[in-house]
Structures are given as structure tokens and as C-alpha cells.
């Protein structure tokens, strides 16, 4: 597997909300980083996990597959957990629309909007 070129940082935004800041490239190589960040957020008691894509530099189809896998995992193991997204550029919004991820993951422009939802 290729070397991951991504950094994922987990931070708390509210009492039950964690943000995963994604910086770099989301491809198959990002699997461990994404799953580790998710586990960290769930362990911190998050009921809402907000994926922050504002520093996303590149995503291929394997990266979208990872997001679907993460969503399925979250739905299966924590049905009340919500996976949200923010900071998507128009290009990445279109990819979410193409792959119909936008029908399963709430998309927001800002953290404040996501918190208010």
C-alpha cells in the first residue's frame, strides 16, 4: 500500500461533537488514519462526528469508498451517531452528489451550521 499523505486531527467542538480535520489526500492509503480518528472520536463520546474537508487536497474513488465504509461502520455500530461533512469545495460537493453520499451524510458550509443542525 502507498504511503499515506494525509493528517487527521480530532478535536472536540461541543459536548457531544468531535471534528476530524482532514489535511492532504484521501485515498486507500488513508484508511488507517481515518479509522483511527473515528475510533478516537467515538471513544471521546461523540454522537456527532464532523468531517472537515476544508484542507482536502486530493481524493480518488478509493477515498470515496473509505467514506462509505466509515458511514456503514458508524450506522452499524452506533446507529444514533451522525456523520456530517463541512468545508467541501464545489468540486468535492459534486463528487458527493455523483456518488450519492450527500444523501447519507449531512453537508454544511461551516462548523456553526453543523452544530446548529
Amino acid at each position: 500500500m502507498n504511503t499515506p499523505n494525509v493528517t487527521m486531527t480530532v478535536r472536540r467542538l461541543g459536548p457531544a461533537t468531535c471534528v476530524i480535520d482532514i489535511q492532504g489526500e484521501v485515498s486507500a492509503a488513508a484508511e488507517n488514519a481515518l479509522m483511527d480518528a473515528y475510533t478516537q472520536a467515538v471513544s471521546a463520546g461523540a454522537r456527532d462526528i464532523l468531517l472537515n474537508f476544508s484542507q482536502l487536497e486530493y481524493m480518488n474513488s478509493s477515498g470515496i469508498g473509505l467514506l462509505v465504509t466509515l458511514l456503514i461502520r458508524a450506522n452499524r455500530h452506533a446507529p444514533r451517531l451522525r456523520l456530517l461533512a463541512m468545508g467541501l469545495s464545489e468540486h468535492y460537493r459534486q463528487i458527493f452528489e455523483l456518488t450519492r453520499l450527500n444523501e447519507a451524510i449531512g453537508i454544511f458550509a461551516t462548523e456553526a451550521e453543523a452544530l446548529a443542525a
Partner: protein
Amino acid sequence: MSVTPPNRDAGHWAKPIRKIKVTDVPAGAVNLNVDGQAVVSPLQGFGTLWQKTYQVRLPGVTLSAAEVMRIWRENFPRLQPAGNHFFPPAAGIEPGRVIFIDTTLPVFPGLPGLIPIAAGVVVIYEDDECFTVMTPAGFPECGWNTFSVQVEEGVPVAQVQSLARAADPIYEFGLYVMGGAQKQEGTWQAVLTALAAHFGVAGQVQMHRTCLDPRLQWAEAGNVWHNAALRTILYVLATPLRRLFPPRLKSGPRQP
């Protein structure tokens, strides 16, 4: 004024597709069950969600991943097993284009396919080392397949990875009781074995399957309305009637 630089992956992705619009049908392909359909992801399917990965190593092949991928793409239809016909677009495998498929589904595990199905998939992503196709509504599975090549420790490794679930209850039954899944797995193993043989390698295909979600999504059971196999059977059965009563061509606007 700052200008946002274009994304590096921008040229690799198809644009959002509300309804598939077929613009060219390769010779021999049947344009059925594709045109006008929406694309569907694993989230819109009915059955158990599986991720299946098939890999073959190509020791001794000194080409780059991109070169192996190019050759794979060029020979994609020829590498299919007997009875499985793929019709890539004349313009090549590009984002947004349809690859037509003409195949059969089995009625019992281990037996050859009997139920005809004419369908297709849409290329949603393509770069030098991989491409991904997504299924339309009515296809046996909802999801996508990614075909890729990467070099591991100096050896090219060709891979097919599917992330998909049966589209409706009939297909779920067909896949896991009537032998559809077995045929599908055999197909990709045969494709990778043929690819290895193309490079003069006796390939050993490794397959790994993971059940990501065993639950059935009953809310999606209505997908059966689009079932391409049922529609293909009706299309085939109606062939004599179409010959007897050819459909009238739509008339254009009247000339003054």
C-alpha cells in the same frame, strides 16, 4: 483577488449524473436498462454489503503501474471469460462514459448462466493507474468496482475491488442461492488470470471478501421495479411481437 486553484483530481471524476444519458452505443451492445437510469451507490442497495478484493501479482513484468493499466484497459473486453461481453465506449474508458455489458445469470450454483441480462456501468473515476465504475438502477448490484494496478516491492499487482450489495430481493436470492455471487467471483478471477497470462505470467489470484454490513435494507426492496434481468427477459420474450408490430418512429415537427 485570489483564485482557487483547480483540484488535482478534477479531471479524473465524472460530473454528477441525475439520469444516465447514452450518447454512443458500441457495435454489438444492447442499449437496455441503462439510458435514463440513475446511478446507485452501495447505500441505495438492498442486500448484504460486501467488499471483495481480487489481486494477482505479475512477477517479472518490468512495466510501470500506468503501463500495465493501459494494456489492461485496451484489452478489457478480450480478457473477459466466455459468455461475458463488455463493450467499452469507442472513445475509451473515460469519466461519464458507459461500458455496456451483455451476460447471463445462473439459475443454480456451478451451472452456466441461463438468464440473459443486458446492462451497463458508468465510469465515474479514471486516472493512469485505476478506474472505477458505478452501477445504474436495475443492475444486479448497487455499488462500484475499482480496477487498479500498483507496484509493490518492484512487482506490479493488478486488483479488482468491489464494494456493493444486491440491488433488490430477487437479486439477493440470485446472488447467494442461485450462484450469482459464485459466478461473479469466478469472472474476476478469470479476468485477472487472463491478464497475467497476457503478460506471460501463470497468475495466482488472491481473493479476500469482507462483509461490511449483513443487514438487509428493506426500505430499498422497491428497487425490484428496475430489475434489469426481469426487463431483459421481457424484452427477449417480446422480440417476436416487436418484429410483427415494429414501433412507430416519432414524427418530427410538421413542415409548412
